[in-house]
């Protein structure tokens, strides 16, 4: 009973934290602070995982979402604009379109939450394996091998796409072309390798 009470208290504390910070994400006018509120939300979600005794997932959540994804988001925010003085508008003039749409979405989701999906009929959940992480790894490599691999391929595609976008442009500056030609000539045994003789003295030829 004590255990249950503590769990409930922790759950409601975490839920409050997550909801408040998620609300802050969409209402704060400073974009960077919104992003930091999102960090708090992620920490709350990691807390839920811990509460469900899924330690591995919880710490991977922290590592990937906070340690990597949020850092990238912050990078993007910092590199794009000066946001310090700029107060962004969180509400545009079209809010009256968005409000009924989100209400509709909520109406769709709410029954799903309330439905007890055969909880009364199904047997109680199985006890956790002694090494949950090892069991997770095994399942990933056997039963869910295909989805796992598809996700990997998706990430690989994203990686390659990023490289393709960031690849330097094909057409180069004329100066570079000229220099390259000079280097070619020098390699072919040209007597005046660097420059046009004016500061050829300083050239290093060894």
């Amino acid at each position: 009973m004590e255990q249950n009470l503590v769990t409930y208290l922790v759950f409601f504390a975490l839920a409050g934290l997550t909801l408040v910070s998620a609300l802050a994400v969409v209402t704060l006018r400073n974009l960077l602070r919104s992003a930091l509120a999102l960090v708090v939300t992620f920490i709350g979600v990691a807390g839920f995982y811990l509460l469900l005794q899924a330690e591995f997932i919880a710490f991977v959540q922290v590592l990937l979402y906070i340690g990597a994804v949020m850092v990238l988001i912050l990078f993007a925010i910092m590199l794009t604009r000066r946001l310090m003085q700029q107060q962004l508008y969180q509400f545009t003039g079209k809010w009256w379109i968005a409000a009924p749409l989100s209400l509709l979405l909520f109406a769709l989701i709410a029954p799903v939450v309330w439905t007890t999906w055969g909880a009364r009929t199904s047997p109680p959940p199985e006890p956790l394996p002694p090494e949950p992480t090892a069991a997770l790894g095994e399942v990933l490599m056997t039963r869910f091998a295909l989805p796992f691999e598809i996700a990997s391929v998706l990430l690989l595609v994203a990686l390659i796409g990023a490289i393709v976008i960031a690849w330097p442009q094909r057409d180069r500056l004329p100066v570079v072309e000229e220099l390259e030609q000079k280097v070619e000539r020098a390699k072919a045994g040209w007597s005046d390798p660097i420059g046009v003789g004016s500061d050829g003295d300083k050239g290093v030829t060894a």
Partner: protein
Amino acid sequence: MELLIQGLNRWLGQALPNWAVVLIGMAIAITLIFVLAPLIFMFLTWLLRRGIARFADRIGPNRTGLGPFNKERTRQRWPLWGLLQPVADGVKMFTKEDIIPDKGDKVLHRIAPIAAVVPALMVFAVIPFGKDLSAVDLNVGVVYVVAVSSLFTLVLLVAGWSSNNKYSLLGAMRTAAQMVSYEVPMVLSLVVPVLFARSLSLNTIVSSQPGLRWYVFYFPLGTLAFLTYFTAALAEVNHTPFDLPEADSEIVAGYITEYSGMKFALFFMGEFINQFLVCALATVLFLGGWQGPGVGIGGPIGYLLSVFWFFVKAFALYFLFVWIRATWPRLRVDQLMGFAWKRLVPITLGNVLATGLAVVVWSLLRA
């Protein structure tokens, strides 16, 4: 931790309910960590300054130390080797003016230094400082350490941004890019001992390296993993030769440019504790943790010896940090990222693959 709770149970079990004993045990463990971490920080600063001084043919701070404070005795030649220098530094830091930039984000500017220390302290919870002496025995200890210490990147981005200073922001960007890049090879190197031990728990990893069967001696895979881990860890904690965030000739003091007084000291505390944690983690994963001669002895002697060996190894690694700091020059920014992504990541990836193969082949051969 379990040991502590058992002991408390024997002592207080009659008088108090079970949960109270657990709570008291937690409080003791947390207090110990809160005392231990600043002590380690102080000792590390002292070790760094004295060590670097010796490498540069100097003496280093030797004016502060215990002893009678009359005129004649403070002029003794080596008053305790300046061991109280960190205390003097702390007093100095407390008396400094605390400056908050007028145009900066004041709230975040205040939060950042505190948040810099918290993740470092949190990692202490799972480090096995000796035989059965870790505050929490997590079965995913390695993942926990990596996840929590990755929070530091976020903190310094916040610190750099809230200062509203170009040097701070540039320094923070550089540091964050560096830390995110080097985290990949670091984590990949950590996978190797995890594969050897077949566990993510730090305690299990230590107890699977008895005697001299440390994973660093598993040539060549373990040795290579240790080297790549050490290199990536140097970059991860912004240490020489990867100390670009503190390249004062280029970006003043990086993300701590606008910090003064105790906030500045807190950032340094975070960095130094992170450096110690990197050494401690290397000790646990590659150097056999608390394993050493005499830990098998029962009773308090065995425990004390195990703690002793752990700290000897960790501080020996830190001395290596000092040695490197006194010797090597700094990398260029453009060389930095290339080294991480083009050299370290392929090496560590290959190492992980080879180790997995070796572990499978070994278990097949034994079966």
